[in-house]
C-alpha cells in the first residue's frame, strides 16, 4: 500500500510538471512568433523612412525611386493630406474609391480602423499627414486599450495564472490518479495476500480486470501447489510412521527371544553373549526407528508440542542424574553448571522433547568418545535468552559434518551418525530457538542451544 501511495504521488507531481512545462513552452512560442513576424513586417515596410523621403520641390512633391519601388512591389498606395484644408495634396497609386478630402473625424476614424476597407498607417509629415495604404484584407487591425492598473499588475497576474494552471493540473492529476489508485488497491492487496498464502478472489470487472484475473489464477495455482506439497509431506510422514509401526512388532519378537536366550542359564556363556549382541543391536534399531519417526514429524510440523512452564535448571540436573544413575562409566565426567542468573530460568516448552534434546547431546558426546571425556552442561542467560551449552573435551566434529550441522541442506537427511543431532536442532527450532555447533580450539566440541 505504501508503494502505491508513492506511485500516486509521483504520478501527480509529474503531471503537474508536464502541465507547467507545456505552459512555459507555449508562452515562449507565442513570444517568438509575435516578435519574429513583427520583424518581417518592419523589414519590408518602414513608413517613417518613406514619409521623410517625400520632399517638396517647386510646388510639387517628389518621392525617390527606391521608396516608390518599395511601395509598388508591396502593392501599396500613399497620399499626403494637407494639415489646413484636409485635402490630398500628393498621392501615389491612390485607389479611386478613396476620397480626396477629409474632416478631422474622418482622419480619427481611419487612423484607428480602416479607410474604405483599406488598412492604412499614418506618419507625421512637415506639410500634413502622410498615409500609407495596404491592399484590402492584408492586415488585421485591432486597437488595444487597457486601464493602466491592469498593465501595472501584469507581472503579478502572469504568476497567478501560472500558479493557477499548475494547481489545476495537480488537482486533475490527483483526481485521475485517485481513480487509478482505487482500482489498483485491490490488486496490491491481492498480491500482498498471495505472499502471505491467503486465498485471493478479486473482482475481474473494470479496466484492470485482466490483471485481477491473472492474480486470481496465480493464487489458485499457488493454493493447488501448496495443497499438493502438504499432501506429499503428509504422505511421507504417514509412510515413515507406517514403516516404523510395521518394524516394531517383529522387532519385539527379536528382542524378546534374544533377551530370553541371553538370560538362559542353560546356554554356554559365548552363546548368551551373542544373544546379548542381538538384543543390543535390536535396541539400536528401536532407537533409530523412533528417531526417524520423530524427525520426520518435526520436519513437517506434525509433532504436537505440549507446552508447559519448565524450570530448565531442574531439567538439566535430572537429565544428567539419569545418565549417572544408569551406570555411566567412570571414564566420563559429567558436570552441570548453572550460572547465578539462570538458577530460576523458566521457559515455556515441551518438557519431554527438551529432555530428549539435552540427552541426545550428552549421548552424542559419550558415543563419539568411547575412551571417556569430560562433559560440561552449562545454563546461563544471555540477552534475555536461555543459553544451554553442552561441551566436551573429546574428538570434536569433522569439518564437513560441522558445516552440515550448521547449514543443513536437507535437514531430514539420514547421516551415518544417526538422527540424534538433527532431532536436537528440530526440537530447538520448534521452540523458536537456535542451535549452533562448534569445535573448541583446545579440543572437543560444544553445542549451544538458545531458547527464547
Amino acid at each position, binding site marked *: 500500500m505504501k508503494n502505491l501511495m508513492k506511485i500516486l504521488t509521483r504520478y501527480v507531481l509529474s503531471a503537474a510538471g508536464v502541465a507547467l512545462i507545456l505552459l512555459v513552452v507555449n508562452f515562449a512560442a507565442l513570444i517568438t512568433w509575435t516578435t519574429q513576424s513583427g520583424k518581417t513586417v518592419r523589414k519590408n515596410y518602414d513608413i517613417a523612412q518613406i514619409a521623410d523621403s517625400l520632399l517638396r520641390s517647386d510646388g510639387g512633391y517628389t518621392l525617390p525611386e527606391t521608396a516608390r519601388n518599395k511601395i509598388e512591389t508591396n502593392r501599396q498606395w500613399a497620399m499626403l493630406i494637407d494639415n489646413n484644408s484636409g485635402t490630398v495634396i500628393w498621392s501615389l497609386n491612390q485607389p479611386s474609391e478613396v476620397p480626396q478630402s477629409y474632416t478631422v473625424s474622418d482622419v480619427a476614424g481611419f487612423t484607428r480602423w480602416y479607410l474604405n476597407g483599406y488598412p492604412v498607417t499614418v506618419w507625421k509629415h512637415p506639410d500634413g499627414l502622410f498615409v500609407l495604404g495596404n491592399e484590402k484584407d492584408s492586415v488585421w487591425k485591432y486597437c488595444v486599450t487597457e486601464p493602466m492598473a491592469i498593465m501595472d499588475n501584469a507581472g503579478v497576474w502572469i504568476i497567478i495564472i501560472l500558479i493557477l494552471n499548475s494547481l489545476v493540473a495537480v488537482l486533475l492529476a490527483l483526481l485521475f490518479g485517485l481513480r487509478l489508485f482505487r482500482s489498483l488497491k485491490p490488486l496490491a492487496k491481492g498480491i500482498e495476500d498471495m505472499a502471505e498464502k491467503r486465498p485471493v478472489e478479486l473482482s475481474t470487472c473494470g479496466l484492470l480486470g485482466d490483471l485481477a484475473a491473472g492474480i486470481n489464477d496465480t493464487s489458485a495455482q499457488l493454493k493447488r501447489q501448496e495443497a499438493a506439497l502438504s499432501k506429499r509431506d503428509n504422505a511421507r510422514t504417514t509412510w515413515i*510412521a507406517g514403516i*516404523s*509401526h510395521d518394524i*516394531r*512388532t*517383529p*522387532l*519385539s*519378537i*527379536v*528382542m*524378546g*527371544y534374544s*533377551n*530370553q536366550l541371553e538370560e538362559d542359564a542353560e546356554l554356554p556363556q559365548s552363546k548368551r553373549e551373542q544373544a546379548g549382541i542381538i*538384543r543390543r543391536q*535390536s535396541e539400536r534399531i*528401536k532407537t533409530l526407528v*523412533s528417531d526417524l*519417526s*520423530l524427525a520426520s*514429524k518435526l520436519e513437517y510440523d506434525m509433532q*504436537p508440542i505440549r507446552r508447559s512452564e519448565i*524450570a530448565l*535448571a*531442574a531439567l538439566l*540436573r*535430572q537429565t*544428567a*542424574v539419569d545418565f*549417572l*544413575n544408569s551406570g555411566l562409566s567412570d571414564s566420563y565426567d559429567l*558436570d*552441570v*553448571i*548453572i550460572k547465578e542468573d539462570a*538458577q*530460576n530460568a523458566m521457559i515455556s516448552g515441551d518438557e519431554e522433547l527438551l529432555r530428549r534434546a539435552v540427552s541426545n547431546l550428552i549421548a552424542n558426546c559419550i558415543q563419539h568418545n568411547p575412551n571417556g571425556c569430560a562433559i560440561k552442561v552449562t545454563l546461563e542467560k544471555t540477552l534475555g535468552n536461555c543459553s544451554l551449552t553442552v561441551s566436551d573435551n573429546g574428538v570434536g566434529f569433522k569439518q564437513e559434518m560441522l558445516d552440515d550441522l550448521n547449514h543443513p541442506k536437507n535437514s531430514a537427511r539420514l547421516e551415518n551418525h544417526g538422527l540424534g543431532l538433527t532431532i536436537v536442532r528440530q526440537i530447538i527450532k520448534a521452540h523458536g530457538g537456535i542451535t549452533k555447533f562448534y569445535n573448541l580450539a583446545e579440543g572437543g566440541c560444544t553445542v549451544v542451544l538458545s531458547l527464547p
Partner: protein
Amino acid sequence: MTVVMKMKDIFDCKLLMVDDEPELRKMVNEILRREGFVKIISASNCNEARQIFIHEKPDGVILDVSLPDGDGFSLLSEIRTTSAVPVLFLSARDEDENRLLGLGLGADDYITKPFLPRELTLRLRAVLSRAYFPVILKRTEKPIFRLGKTKIDLNSGAVITKNDQLMLTAKEFALLEKLYENRGNIVTGDSLCRAAWSDNLYGYENTLMVHIRRLREKIEPEPSTPRYLLTVRGLGYKLTGVEDR
C-alpha cells in the same frame, strides 16, 4: 470382590492377550508362563476378544492398539462400560503415546513396542497388584534399614544407634524416605525439594543444605565426613551403603 478374596496372588489372574501377530502372542504367552502366570487366553482381533471377554471374564487384559477389525482404544471403551478390569496397552506407534497420555482412556499402563520381556512382566505385575492387592493393605509396613551400625525405622521415623535413639523431623523424614526409595542412585535437589516442600529448588538451596546437615548429624557416625549420605556436587545427593534389615 469375591474374585479378589479367592485370589491367592496375582499369578492366579486369568489374562487375556489381544494381538494380531501370532508369533508375538506366542512369545508373550511364553514370557508370562515363565513368569508364573498359568491362565492365559489369546485373541487375534476385536471380535474374538469381545466374545472371550464375555465368556471368560479375564482378570487382566494385554491389548494391542492396532487390530485388524478396529483399534484397541474403542475396544477399551466398550470394556469399560461393563468392567474395571486392569488393562495394559501394547502400542507400536508414537502417536498412540500421545493419545494414551492425552486422553483419560482408562488404561492402567502402556508399553511401546519393541519391549524387553522384563518390562512387560514388571508393568503387568504392577498393574495387577494395584488392582487386586492395593497398597492400602500394605501401607502399615514401611521399610526398616541399616546404614552401617545405625538402624532406621521409617514406620516410626526413628534412628537407632547402639546407645541412642533419635527421632527424625517431618522434613528430614521426607528427605530420607525419598533418598531411600532411590538408594544407590543420585536424587536431584529438585526432587528432594518437591518431596519435602512441594516446590522447586530455587530459593530453597540453603534450607535444603541445612536439613541435609541435620539429617547427617543423626544418621552419620561422622557427620563432617559422610559415608552414607553423599553430596553429588551441582546435582544432588545419594544414599549409599543401605542394608535392608
